[in-house]
């Protein structure tokens, strides 16, 4: 029968839509209201010091809209006006300096796309398949285009002659919120690609991402991307703060713990189909898609397996991989309706291949929390529904 949506004049084709200025700053249309950050309540004691997850199952491309990019606060997202913002550079510098927000805007700036991944992303999956949704297993990640000033420029403005030999020097960075999150970063990284950023995806940072100014530490664990960054101190050693000793360290099977595990290794995951994004169209053409990234370089290849890792085929990268940024991959395929054990496996330009869960466990044991970059498996049943599983 003819489709009335075509044969009958529909209201939207007859009358008016909204005028301009209906929403001076727009929100997604109501039909997309399920594409939101979500939190796992049992994870933390209190939402003020907690984390939520990006709905990566429902996004495409690589840029994460700020409004649904995951949040992690240690003492809540604070209100800090640009006018009240100060950035201090002190320690082993020639002249300790204070910059206002307006000062920062007068330095030459860069635009760079980087992913930010919490070290705990996929952490709940160490001991076994636990959360049924890629948003929850892999959603502590976002990818934005940042505009900001290289930290190098600000350090040079304060002068590094006093620091002498820079090879054994560090910077300590801390935020203006009550948690005062403080992290030590080796000078080599500080002078390399770290940004003091004030815009993301073209607009001001959101409050929950550190408005007005945050640190961007490309490829390194999200906890170091200090929000509301207020002070950068040049030092001759690390502070060994709570966030870099008691947290964000990886305890191995023998009880010894790794520290300074900053770089996030190459990782990938199929975002659709997945438990929150089942196949609803039955047999025939199927787009399998996902994200891949590496904190140590650019993604060069992603392989996809439909049989739990017995055989693999190379996926298509939507664009060549970029340094320390998300890469979108697609496997355009024809589904015969049979059960699949879907996996993806990323490789980066260092030649590193994303490991399986058992490979990781063999080296690190079962007690790690952070830095889990294992291959993920989705069991996709013949009805199209998907489930988080582990395979032999």
């Amino acid at each position: 029968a003819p489709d009335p949506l075509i044969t009958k004049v529909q209201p939207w084709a007859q009358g008016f839509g909204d005028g301009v200025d209906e929403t001076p700053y727009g929100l997604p249309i109501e039909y997309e209201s399920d594409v939101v950050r979500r939190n796992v309540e049992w994870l933390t004691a209190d939402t003020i010091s907690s984390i939520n997850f990006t709905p990566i199952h429902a996004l495409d491309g690589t840029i994460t809209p700020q409004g649904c990019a995951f949040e992690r606060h240690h003492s809540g997202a604070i209100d800090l006006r640009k006018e009240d913002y100060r950035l201090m550079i002190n320690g082993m510098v020639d002249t300790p300096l204070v910059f206002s927000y307006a000062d920062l805007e007068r330095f030459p700036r860069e635009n760079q796309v980087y992913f930010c991944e919490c070290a705990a992303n996929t952490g709940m999956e160490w001991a076994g398949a636990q959360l049924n949704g890629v948003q929850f297993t892999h959603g502590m990640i976002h990818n934005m285009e940042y505009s900001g000033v290289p930290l190098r420029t600000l350090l040079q403005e304060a002068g590094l002659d006093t620091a002498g030999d820079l090879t054994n020097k560090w910077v300590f960075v801390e935020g203006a919120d009550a948690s005062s999150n403080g992290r030590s970063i080796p000078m080599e990284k500080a002078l390399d690609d770290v940004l003091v950023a004030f815009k993301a995806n073209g607009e001001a940072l959101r409050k929950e991402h550190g408005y007005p100014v945050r640190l961007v530490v490309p490829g390194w664990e999200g906890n170091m991307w200090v929000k509301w960054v207020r002070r950068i101190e040049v030092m001759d050693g690390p502070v060994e703060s709570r966030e870099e000793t008691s947290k964000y360290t990886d305890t191995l099977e023998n009880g010894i713990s790794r520290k300074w595990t900053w770089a996030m290794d190459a990782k990938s995951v199929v975002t659709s189909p997945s438990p929150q994004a089942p196949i609803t169209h039955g047999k025939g053409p199927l787009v399998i898609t996902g994200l891949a990234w590496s904190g140590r370089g650019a993604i060069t290849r992603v392989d996809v397996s439909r049989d739990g890792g017995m055989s693999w085929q190379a996926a298509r990268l939507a664009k060549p991989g970029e340094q320390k940024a998300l890469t979108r991959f697609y496997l355009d395929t024809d589904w015969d309706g049979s059960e699949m054990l879907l996996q993806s496996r990323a490789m980066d330009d260092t030649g590193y291949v994303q490991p399986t869960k058992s490979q990781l466990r063999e080296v690190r044991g079962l007690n790690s929390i952070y830095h889990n970059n294992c291959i993920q498996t989705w069991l996709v049943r013949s009805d199209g529904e998907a489930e988080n599983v582990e395979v032999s």
Partner: protein
Amino acid sequence: EKFGLGRAALPEEIAAWDRDIRPNGTGLPEGSGDAIVGEEIFATRCAACHGDFAEGIDNWPELAGGADTLDHDDPLKTVGSYWPYLSSGYDYIKRSMPYGNAGTLSDDEVYALLAYILYSNDLIEDDFVLSKETFFDVEMPNAEGFIIDDRTETEYTQWTGEPCMENCKDEVRVTMRAMVLDVTPEEETTPKPAQEETVGAGAASFDAELAAKGEKVFKKCKACHQIGEAAKNRTGPILTAVVGNPAGAVDGFKYSQPLKERAENGLVWTEEELVAFLAKPKAYMKGTKMSFAGLSKQDDLAAIVEYLKSFGV
């Protein structure tokens, strides 16, 4: 090369912000404290989350115990069992604690609290006076328990190269399913409006929609206050049925002196009094223990009171 931007930081400004403490003791201030003094401070400032014995409540961190568990299943990582440097303890407590009232502890208080935490971990005696001078007399059990990232040797070498593409395994079995655990958050249904059955005498003027807004505002209060049937006193007293009732009346809560005095003089938490208090707590009641800065928006004030009303008046 230089842009001539910014201005010189003044020594007072650097002193105000540069408070980090290094493993070698750099930055440690004068002052001292022991576990006996620390226990009292801990009870009022820390125990609501960390428990009277630093054992942790609900999901809040345990600070004591766990000795020799690091190579077991589910190791218990506490200041005693895990932290390699005592300096991190001073640094963190001084700058970041108490949660919701950061930076309010004096140097003596921080030394005393740290001493109490060490004592709770059986690392010092209760008469041990912790100070800059005695700081390094304390041995941290897990000081040697860390290695620097060795992934280059232990992982990268074996996980590099051309991966297998065909016949990589003989068989594949599903060994674990997330469905079995069933810990994935359920999709929330529409938020439940305020509980009508608990609305008492003030029901005629009760606005459920406003109360629902107030529930969001109440997030700012939740770090210290609980409300509802199962509520317990934490940093702040339970707020169930606070509206319209006498101030300072929650059993088992240690109120500040000024609040006790006002209560004795007959203060009742009417809607008007609550609005005045919550707009500027410290101005309304000099010396209150409540560290909250206040709600600046009239809408938020009205909403929060309406929310409180939904738990009885």
